[in-house]
């Protein structure tokens, strides 16, 4: 009996461990390995070049550009959906008429894949007949024919808006769940002590939503780190690298310029950045845990 459960344990663990090893561990190490080579991605011959690829990162203007864009992208992709999701959750929770309906509508985009969302927003931003320009034309009486995704000034921002549109629903649902977990008697204390809506929200509700906020921010961080597909669909990092993030830059270097060694070096750096962000995050998490347990 003992024996056979032991077998089963190994058997059941084998599959996930294998998947993890093949698709996570192995690529991780091979990236690390190739980052010290000049491999082009398909030629079996390559040489070791030491730290040349890493040295190149330091002098690569496009890399710096990608870092800046990544910071902008991540900050916006964390702050916007979190703030909007919170606002929507508070509104729906205050029993506005039709709240349940709005809840489903706002949640809907989460069910779509990034490719679909990207395509929808490409149409919205379309210069000649896109929804955005059409609305502007209606309001101002002047059709701007502005190509939102094709101008360096607006490309990244436009993708951020599309991204937030999709992520807000998720944040909202998590905040709504957080609101229901606030003990009713705390809200009743607010009522008895005479807190107005604003005071209640600011002094009591939002701080008590901290555990929900932690989850929302965690998901936003993780999702934004992964947020490659929507950029790829909508701008491909362009125009003129104005919406290049690290992930995008790495992709372009590896698969468009066939500099697999250099791309690997970028990916190693990206990995280290992600690791740092996540570590800081978990440290903060422990602090929150101490208060809200």
């Amino acid at each position, binding site marked *: 009996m003992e024996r056979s459960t032991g077998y089963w344990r190994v058997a059941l663990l084998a599959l996930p461990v294998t998947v993890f090893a093949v698709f996570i561990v192995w690529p991780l190490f091979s990236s690390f390995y190739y980052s010290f080579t000049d491999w082009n991605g398909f030629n079996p011959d390559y040489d070791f070049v030491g730290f040349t690829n890493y040295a190149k990162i330091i002098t690569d203007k496009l890399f710096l550009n990608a870092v800046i864009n990544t910071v902008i992208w991540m900050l916006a992709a964390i702050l916007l959906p979190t703030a909007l999701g919170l606002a929507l959750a508070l509104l729906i929770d205050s029993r506005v008429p039709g709240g349940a309906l709005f809840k489903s509508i706002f949640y809907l985009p989460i069910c779509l894949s990034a490719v679909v969302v990207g395509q929808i927003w490409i149409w919205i931003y379309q210069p000649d007949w896109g929804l955005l320009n059409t609305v502007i034309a209606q309001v101002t009486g002047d059709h701007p024919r502005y190509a939102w995704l094709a101008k360096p000034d607006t490309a990244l921002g436009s993708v951020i808006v599309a991204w937030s549109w999709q992520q807000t629903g998720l944040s909202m649902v998590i905040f709504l769940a957080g609101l229901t977990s606030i003990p009713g008697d705390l809200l*009743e204390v607010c*009522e008895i*002590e*005479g807190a107005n809506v604003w005071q209640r929200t600011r002094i009591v509700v939002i701080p008590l939503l901290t555990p929900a906020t932690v989850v929302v921010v965690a998901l936003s961080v993780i999702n934004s780190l992964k947020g490659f597909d929507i950029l790829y669909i909508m701008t491909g990092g362009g125009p003129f690298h104005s919406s290049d993030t690290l992930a995008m830059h790495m992709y372009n270097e590896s698969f468009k310029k066939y500099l697999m060694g250099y791309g690997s070096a970028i990916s190693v750096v990206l990995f280290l950045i992600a690791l740092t962000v996540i570590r800081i995050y978990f440290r903060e998490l422990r602090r929150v845990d101490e*208060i809200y347990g």
Partner: protein
Amino acid sequence: MADIELRNVSKHFGEAEIINGVDFKAGHGEFIVFVGPSGCGKSTLLRLITGLDQVSGGQILIGGEDVTRLRPSQRGVAMVFQSYALFPHLSVAENIGFGLRLAKLPKAEIKQRVRETARILRVEDLLDRKPRQLSGGQRQRVAIGRSIIRNPKVFLFDEPLSNLDAALRVLMRLEIARLHKRLGTTMIYVTHDQTEAMTLADRIVVINRGRIEQIGSPINLYDAPANRFVAGFIGSPAMNFVELSRREGDCYLGASDQGADALLPQFTGEAAVLGVRPEHVMLADADMADLRATVEIVEKLGSETMVYLQTKAMDTPLTMRAPPESRLAPGERVSLRFERGHIHVFDHEGATISTR
């Protein structure tokens, strides 16, 4: 300070009638305790007075003013919850000063009044802590502090001590009594612990199934319960009830062959149940006995002895309070006598029949 008056207050949730036409008045500075079994509507009644729930019918007056339609914050009431309801993210000082902060008082004044309140409740060394870092008793004090700081007209407590252990409960009970003396504010206190009710109350309101069974001082309820429910609810251990049975025109104690006529001086045909408290059951000589019994269990409590006896008259054991030095042992046959003048008689509806 203010008096509270409920006029024919009722409350239903959907179909369910929870409170049925409650009339009741509490005077200035009175300490009123609501007691009753779980689910009888004590909390609901308190929430109606606070304004957290709206009455389905009737009126509520505080200090002579009709507050039935006012919001909780406009009624001048403060409430202490069983769960303490402290804000986990705020310090003790911020929790106590919560109401003043909402009222936008100057910071210096808030600080000074928080200190003063914390001193009264002896939590002044804890002001910087978070609720999680406090013991149950300390949390309870902070919750009380938050409610007294605004000088409310009326204090409402919903089972404030039920999360504390027995020893702490006794201490906090004394502290609440002291607080009431000091502040002189009208207080309504909900509990299902009848010791708390007996010790704290000026008057007790006994509630059962959304109705008031009786209102009176603790001693009054103890000595002269209006009905069988109150008689059984007030007093610990509970009163013994003996059903009366009638055979061939004579009245007997339960299924026994003990005649009951001697116990019922003004015998009326309506007498159905006889009640006697454990301390009014005594050992007696066989010729003076009202009832014969067998000792089943003896509990030595140190200050007294509880004896549980089997009788033919009752299905459940009869409880007798005996002195600590009592030598009764299980299995012993004894003769019992009920102390005259302390026998309660109830009719078929459970209402008390006066025997005086």
